[in-house]
């Protein structure tokens, strides 16, 4: 155990808590910025009678000083109470619980796929001639910059309608997961492949790699046992970024493929300006980001023995 490790973990935890608090505060502020909370709760339609207005203000405590409302909101969040959806008239927590499954499936599938694609691209192209490298960096550029919703549309047009290999929109089950997961994984795979390839090539010019080869080991052995571990490091570091890319992308991909999920819920809640739902999903994505980064931070010494060696000295 590193001597400074406890302190380090504590600091990281604190900064994670700080980000979450900031996110919660931001969300609280947006609800106030929206203004006319009574109108938002009732939704479009007839203007409320003064009677009804008074009733809602009393029920939601809207005439309390804002500091009191803020404190109450934070307390509610800490106890897992995410509020009440304006438009759907349901607890937000239940809405999220209903929709999180399909999104998690999609995100996990896409995350695995992006790593798989990146590793394959790296192994096939690292250290190759100029032509292969140019072609691959071109492909990586396309993967990174093509809009995922367009990739999804083209995949659907090709593989669901022209050649009906995969089921079309809204299909449950693993077969329906292939196309959306691929479209979602592509940008992340592009970035990971770029970084991994560079790292692998750098690692293979190091003395240890040369000495492994000099002992007569083949390239496969070198990569399987040694250099791929180096190349995996940036992937771990980029986990938080990958999560963000998947979370943002899922909103559009779920829409294109007409899949249920948090992204779809977020889009429709934003359209109907259902702030309790929107802020809850925003908070959830921030929480996921914080947790992933924390886990990465804790895992890092386990993956990179150099960090442990440094600590032992």
């Amino acid at each position: 155990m590193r001597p400074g490790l406890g302190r380090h973990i504590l600091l990281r935890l604190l900064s994670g808590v700080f980000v979450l608090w900031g996110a919660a505060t931001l969300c609280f502020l947006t609800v106030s910025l929206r203004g006319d909370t009574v109108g938002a709760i009732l939704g479009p339609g007839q203007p409320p009678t003064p009677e009804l207005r008074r009733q809602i203000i009393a029920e939601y405590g809207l005439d309390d000083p804002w500091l009191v409302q803020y404190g109450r909101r934070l307390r509610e969040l800490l106890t897992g109470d995410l509020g009440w959806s304006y438009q759907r008239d349901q607890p937000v927590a239940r809405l999220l619980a209903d929709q999180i499954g399909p999104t998690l499936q999609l995100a996990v599938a896409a995350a695995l796929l992006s790593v798989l694609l990146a590793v394959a691209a790296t192994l096939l192209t690292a250290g190759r001639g100029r032509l292969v490298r140019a072609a691959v960096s071109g492909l990586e550029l396309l993967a990174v910059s093509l809009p995922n919703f367009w990739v999804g549309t083209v995949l659907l047009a090709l593989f669901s309608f022209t050649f009906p290999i995969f089921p079309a929109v809204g299909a449950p089950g693993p077969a329906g997961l292939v196309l959306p997961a691929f479209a979602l994984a592509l940008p992340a795979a592009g970035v990971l492949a770029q970084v991994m390839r560079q790292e692998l090539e750098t690692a293979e010019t190091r003395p240890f790699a040369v000495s492994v080869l000099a002992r007569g080991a083949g390239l496969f052995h070198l990569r399987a046992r040694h250099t791929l571990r180096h190349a995996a490091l940036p992937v771990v570091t980029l986990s938080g970024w990958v999560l963000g890319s998947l979370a943002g992308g899922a909103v559009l991909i779920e829409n294109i493929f007409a899949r249920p999920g948090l992204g779809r819920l977020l889009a429709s809640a934003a359209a109907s300006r259902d702030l309790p739902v929107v802020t809850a999903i925003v908070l959830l994505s921030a929480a996921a980001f914080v947790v992933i980064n924390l886990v990465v931070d804790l895992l890092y010494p386990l993956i990179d023995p150099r960090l442990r060696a440094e600590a032992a000295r």
Partner: protein
Amino acid sequence: MTATTFTARRAPAAGRPVFAAGLAVLALALLVVLFPALFATHDPDATDFARTFQPPGADHFFGTDQLGRDVFSRVVYGARVSLTIALGATAIGVLGGMLLGLLSAVGGRIVDGVLMRCVDVLLAFPELILALLVVAVIGGGAVNIAVAIGTAAIPAYARVVRGQAGTVILSEYVEAARVLGVRRSVYLARHVVPNVAGPVVVLASIGGGTAIVTAAGLSLLGLGPPQPTAEWGAMLAEGKDLLGTAWWIAVFPGMTVALVVVAFTLVGRNLQVRSLR
């Protein structure tokens, strides 16, 4: 990293022809935005119920949609809407980022600390999700999504400006200006801003591409300009339910977004490589 490297390999920079191609696409896009009538072959909003769902051909380059409108002409006219939203968003992001970044760089420890912690919090969200939060507060529509996308981009720009301005302010020429008694607003405008502008322009050329994608994405979700405005994301949204009958209604507007974004990315990355030399 302590290990020595035998050969320091450089990341291959895309060559001059690629840069030129990217610039050419952007120049063409600018022409289309300024003079759509020169490029369009039909009235973008004219419906023709005798010619619905025509596949792409000599008459209709990108085919016709469910109302018999010419998809190519709608893509041409859509350029103005889509690219103006993206441009507005990028301008908001850059200006806001400049303002916050400079304020943070000159504002002393407390201002700097508070602002940069706020930026840290905001960077924990994917930009699209932040933009959706803003849309939920201010509502949809062309202007509002430009504001939303721009606001969501501010933290990233602010971070870069803060870093850059921090080094520039410590440089000797700014020190000299300060010692000579030049007022802060003057040396900020004369020395700091121009030196910060370079990296920001590079970032904005990549960010502009992202803004186009996000704008099209928000319209795709039905949050952009109302129907029947020709806008790339909205066209894609309309076409995606008709993929089985007429793939071209959704695919071509999306392809245009992709083309422009790739051009922005190519130009941006080349500028980045050049500025590092």
